[in-house]
Structure formats: C-alpha cells, structure tokens
C-alpha cells in the first residue's frame, strides 16, 4: 500500500508538475511577497498563457509558443498595473477586473471553443524526448527543472540590480519610495509585467505538458500558487533571497506531492480545489495559531505561579 503511494513515478510526476507550477508561485513571490500587491489576475493570466501557447504551437513552433505566451502575460500584467498606477483602481479590484475580462479574451484566443487539443502536434516535451532519448522517461523533469532554474536564477540576478532593488523598496516602504528617486508607477508596472510573463509561461508549459488547454484550467491557480509560496516560506524561512526563491520551488513541489498522495487515497479530483483552499488557509493562519498557543501556555504558567504566590487561581477576579 505505502509503496504504491510513494512510488518513484508519483514522485517524478509531482516534481514535474511542481517545477511547472513553481513559475506561478515565483510570479506571486514577486507580486505578493516583494511588491506587496495581491494580484488576482493570476487565474486568467494562466489560462491566457495556456491558450496562446496552444494556438501558436498548433500553427507555429512549440518553442515560439512559450515566448508568445510570455508576451501575452506581459500584456496582461501591464493592463493590471496601468489600472492601479495610472487610473487609481484598487490593486485587488484591478486584478479582478482584468481576470474577468480575460475570460472572454481567452475564449476568443481559443477560437470560441472551451477546449483545444495538442495531441497531434509537437510540444517542447516531445521534441525533448527525441533529443534526450538517453534520459528514458526523465526528459520532462529535466526540461521543467531547467526552465525553473533559469527563471529562478534570472529572478535572483534581477532583484540585485538597481531596478530590482527599487521594486523591492517599493513593496517594503512606500514612504521611503516617495522621498527617493523611485517612480512607484514604473516599478509596479515592471514588477507586474514580469509576474504576468512567468504566470503565462507556466500556463504555456502546462498546456504542452498535458497536451490540451481548457478554459477553466486557471481556476483557483492564485490559491494554489499562494499555498506553494507559503509552504516554502514556512519551511525554508525568509532569511535570504536565494533561500526564499528556493523555498518557492520547494513549496510548489511539496504541494504537488501532497496532491498526488491525496489522489492516491482516492480523494476525487473534483475535491482538490477544496483541499488546496484548506492547505492555504492552514498555512497562512499557522503563525497566528502558533502565537496563540504560545500565549495561552505563558498565561497558564503565570496562573500557576500566581496560585503558588497568592493561593488563588486568579480566576475569581479582584
């Protein structure tokens, strides 16, 4: 029983999906953790990447499709940023508006059908299979790992540049940014464009991975990515930037592993959104729960000392 749950295949699939979805988590790392913006356009942006990638892969080349997906993601991020930096829309509202609009855009990209299949077309993974035939079944993982490695490395490099540091300061201290030579409208725009491109790239890779695109593929993506992000931060901490980026990838893989195990225990696939919502809720509330437990413990100890000194439990009041 246990052997079948923790088989190598389950682990491999979890790692593959973990690496692909880690790109969305990395996108949220930039918008949510660094810029301190809750960008709710993630779901629509993910589907956009998926849809654009499918269409370009069908008519062009699967590799070109990935870049096209990223370009589409940049556009989506730019519009979200434009709404909040230039038109005074609340950041959460801006995300919701773009997300809603994207549903129609996505349908249009998919030719007003809710499904596209890539079964008969080459994908980057099928190309990799030919080129890396010696890898056995591991070519998918290798490719996905390379992509997330490149994205994570580029992110780390970028966050150390003048622009990257400015983006970090924008999310960290708004008062400081106003008094220093940083234009927050610019840094937020750049940040959300990068974040959008990563989200769409993830969607594009997933489309090629599962050889299909569905109009609802992105639903709940923001919750799942947040779960990965927070699992990573809880386990690896927030001490240094490389550690945090590593935590994002690690959290994403771990989340996929949890999902894989849950599926093995015959949790129906339809219940997975509820499971991810629960994971996120628990992960986010963990610090508060821990604090509460520590507080109650200290209070209990103080009560005991109080009883020893004064002979009452203190519960009776004055």
């Amino acid at each position, binding site marked *: 029983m246990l052997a079948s749950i923790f088989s190598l295949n389950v682990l491999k699939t979890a790692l593959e999906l973990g690496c692909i979805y880690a790109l969305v988590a990395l996108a949220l790392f930039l918008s949510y953790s660094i810029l301190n913006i809750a960008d709710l356009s993630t779901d629509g942006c993910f589907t956009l990447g998926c849809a654009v990638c499918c269409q370009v892969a069908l008519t062009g080349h699967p590799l070109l499709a990935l870049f096209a997906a990223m370009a589409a993601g940049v556009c989506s991020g730019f519009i979200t940023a434009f709404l909040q930096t230039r038109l005074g829309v609340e950041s959460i509202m801006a995300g919701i508006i773009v997300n809603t609009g994207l549903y129609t855009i996505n349908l249009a990209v998919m030719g007003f059908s809710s499904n596209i299949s890539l079964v008969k077309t080459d994908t980057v993974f099928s190309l990799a299979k030919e080129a890396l035939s010696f890898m056995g079944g591991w070519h998918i993982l290798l490719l996905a790992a390379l992509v997330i490695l490149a994205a994570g490395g580029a992110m780390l490099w*970028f966050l*150390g*540049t*003048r*622009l990257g*540091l*400015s983006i*970090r*300061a924008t999310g*960290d*201290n708004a*008062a*400081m940014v*106003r*008094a*220093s*030579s*940083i*234009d927050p409208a610019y840094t937020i725009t750049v940040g959300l464009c990068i974040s959008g491109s990563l989200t769409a790239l993830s969607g594009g890779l997933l489309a090629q991975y599962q050889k299909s695109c569905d109009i609802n593929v992105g639903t709940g993506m923001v919750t799942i990515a947040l779960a990965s992000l927070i699992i990573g931060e809880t386990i690896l901490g927030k001490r240094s930037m490389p550690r945090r980026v590593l935590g994002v990838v690690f959290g994403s893989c771990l989340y996929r592993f949890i999902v894989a195990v849950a599926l093995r225990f015959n949790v129906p696939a339809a219940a997975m959104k509820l499971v991810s919502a629960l994971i996120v809720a628990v992960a986010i509330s963990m610090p508060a729960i821990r604090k509460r437990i520590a507080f109650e413990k200290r209070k209990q100890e103080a009560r005991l000392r109080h009883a020893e000194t004064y002979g009452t439990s203190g519960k009776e009041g004055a």
Partner: protein
Amino acid sequence: MLKLHNIRKTFNPGTVNEKIALDGVNLELKAGDFATIVGSNGAGKSTLFNAITGAFIADEGSIILGGEDITFKPEFQRSRVIGHLFQDPLKGTAPNMTIEENLALAYLRAGRAQRATFSRISRKDKEFFRERLALLDMGLEDRMKQPVGLLSGGQRQALTLLMATLVTPRLLLLDEHTAALDPATAEKVLALTSRIVAEQKITCLMVTHNMHQALELGNRTLMMDGGRIVFDVEGEERSRMTVDDLLEKFRQNAGQQLDNDRILLSKTEK
C-alpha cells in the same frame, strides 16, 4: 546653488479650509551654505521642503537648483540630486532589506546616466559601503547582511543620512531629523551630520526647534512665519547672536506670542 523665487502655495483654495502655506518665499543659497530654519508650527517650513522636493508643484514662482530649473520636474527625478531626511527615522529605509541592499539602492539610484537600469554593486562598492559605515561608529559595518528593521531608530536615522549623502547630493534637506531620537543619540546623529556636510561641502537646509542648534550649526539662520522668510542672518551678525536675541527677533517678526512649547523649552536646554 539653490534659488527660490517668489514661491507661493495655497492649500484647499476657495474652501473654508483655505490656507496660504507659502506666501512668496525668496531664498538664495550659495554652494556649501548650511542654513538652519526656525519657526513656529505652521510657519511653512516643511511645506517649503515639500515645494523643493516636488511633493507638489508650487502655484507660483521658480526653483533653480545647480543652474537647472526644476520647477516642474516630477518628485522622483528631483530626488536623484536632493537628499531628504524626516523626523520619523522609519521613513528613510526599507526594513526588510539588508543594510547592504539599502546602501546599494541609494548608491545605484543616485548615480547619473552611467549607472544603467540593470547595474549591480561590485565587491569594490561593498568595500566602499563598509568604509562609510565604519565612519558612523555604530558597528554597522559588521552587520551589513542584517535587515534594517533590526536597527534602533538612531541607527536607522544615521543610515538614512549615510544613504542620502553616499553620492554627494546637490542639496540636503533635514526636517527635524533628530527630534524623534533620545538626547544622546540625537547628539551623535547631529555631530555626524555636521561632519558629513562639512567634509563633502554639501549645501544644506535644516529645520530645528532648538534655538541653540539654530545658531551653532551651519553658517546661516533663517526664520519663517506665515509662509514667508522673515529673518535671515549670517556671518558676523550671526556669530554675535544669543538665543535670547533670536527669541526677541522671533517676537518682533512674528508679532505674536510664542506659541510653541518646544521653542520656549529649548531656550533653557543646552
């Protein structure tokens, strides 16, 4: 270095809350001038600073800094050459970024065109940061990898000062930057300010409520009231002035009772 001509600013014009904050300010600072500014609450000191930094565009008048007309330049472009320190020590640094990253940000953004968008700091730059941090004499040079949020208010204000002057600015604006610190720390940050401003020959304006500081620091003292500069003293005349003289001037020019406890108290404190 800095030329202000007839700067005017009215807040909430045409409403019951209309307030003439700046009523035709004229000021010329020579390169290397270090002027202190005194004035009661609402005299327009901070508003004057905000007009210079571009937090708002003045209704009237022109601002020329280092020969360049910056009257209509946006705030973030002006601040490349203007350092601005506030009373609140938390306002000048990013708490979740390390000391080194904060300095890197200040260093890279203050540089001119040769510092491109994607420039990074080098090992040589880090060595330079370490040297400058050592000057603060707070042991921060050994804590460069720690987040700034762990520092005390005084340490953060000292770091903010260092960041503002890492690349010598054309103008440094100090808005009561030691008022929120305890006396010993305030003393230290003030000494540091004097030294850095003197060493780098920075043109500087400093708001203070301490009459001793107003006369002792720098080479010029300005007094503001009702949105105007009502008194401007430097050189021989200034060095002969006592705190009592300055308070007397205050009464004459303001034409009203001193309403500010801090100013009255500063008469006795040293």
